């Protein structure tokens, strides 16, 4: 049983590509056959996030235009057995592919892989419409900021119009200390506003920047909180009801002091 999942957000810079890479790698680590599709034609990034930028020969547009066979464009990630990338073209623009071509492509990939995960570009124009065209499920990424949540709300409406009902939410870059101070919206606040199911919460984590610098994922990093959060998301995608990580537990002196005086 395979599925085609689109990862989208409306707003740029909230972590779509990082989430796509980590969820894909996480599924592959657990033995699943996964292909990640970079649908951001003209601004490809999934290749650099995965550290596969030097291995691209053909891309998604080549496949859509019949310049090569699908298998020739797929890049196998040597670190994770079962993980593949179909890169976006860098020199074309969004109009180089049609929603109909994307639907055909997704159908073909679905025959070959258990999980087809599409990294959508920011925005709600043709690139977005291409990315959702062949998808059966959707993951919406947001951060606890007014602009990101607003754009997520808009995207949820558009997904529903495209018959992708019941999208799942990932809240990225949550900062527990700011939440505790009352200076950042918390999980309940965001769910309350968007009214969709929560798939997971990723805390802000320096490990992400370090691993991105290296072209590596963080999901296999046992010391990383974000890595743990991504592993939990992967389990939930596989149907395991993993509880949310406790992000409130403040470590360090201040946290202990607070608890001591009953304010924690």
């Amino acid at each position: 049983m395979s599925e085609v999942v689109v990862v989208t957000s409306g707003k740029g810079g909230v972590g779509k590509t990082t989430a796509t890479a980590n969820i894909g790698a996480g599924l592959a680590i657990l033995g699943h056959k996964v292909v990640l599709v970079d649908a951001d034609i003209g601004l490809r990034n999934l290749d650099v996030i995965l550290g596969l930028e030097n291995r691209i020969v053909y891309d998604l547009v080549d496949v859509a235009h019949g310049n090569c066979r699908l298998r020739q464009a797929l890049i196998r990630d040597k670190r994770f057995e079962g993980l593949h990338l179909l890169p976006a073209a860098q020199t074309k623009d969004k109009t180089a592919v049609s929603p109909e071509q994307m639907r055909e492509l997704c159908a073909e990939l679905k025959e070959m892989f258990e999980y087809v995960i599409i990294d959508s570009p920011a925005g709600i124009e043709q690139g977005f419409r291409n990315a959702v065209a062949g998808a059966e499920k959707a993951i919406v990424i947001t951060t606890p900021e007014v602009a990101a949540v607003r754009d997520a709300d808009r995207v949820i409406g558009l997904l529903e119009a495209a018959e992708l009902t019941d999208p799942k939410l990932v809240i990225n870059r949550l900062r527990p200390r700011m939440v505790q101070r009352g200076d950042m919206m918390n999980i309940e606040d965001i769910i309350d506003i968007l009214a969709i199911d929560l798939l997971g919460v990723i805390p802000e984590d320096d490990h992400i920047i370090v691993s991105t610098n290296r072209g590596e994922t963080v999901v296999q990093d046992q010391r990383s909180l974000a890595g743990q959060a991504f592993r939990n998301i992967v389990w939930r995608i596989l149907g395991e009801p993993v509880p949310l990580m406790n992000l409130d537990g403040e470590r360090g002196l201040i946290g202990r002091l607070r608890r001591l005086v009953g304010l924690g």
Partner: protein
Amino acid sequence: MSTLLSFLAKLFGREEAGSKHIAKERLRLVLVHDRANVSPQLLQVLKADLLKVISNYMEVDEKGLEVQIDRTESSVALVASIPIKRLKRVAKSMA
């Protein structure tokens, strides 16, 4: 004394009015506007449904019926103007 208390509250993160409340309130408002972007088709269907319900109680002028979304700075309202032709006897006795 009260300033000392609020200072302590801030220090220990118990300040009620953190900026997240402002964020949430602004979001709530902006989304009311965003979501109120209803299509003319939807308004037509709504009009038809309104007429169906209201005509159970009174006779109204279908041609004079006006339904629109009114947006102001701080709220969005559904405003309907429905001229009544005649009240039905049933409605009267119920009132």
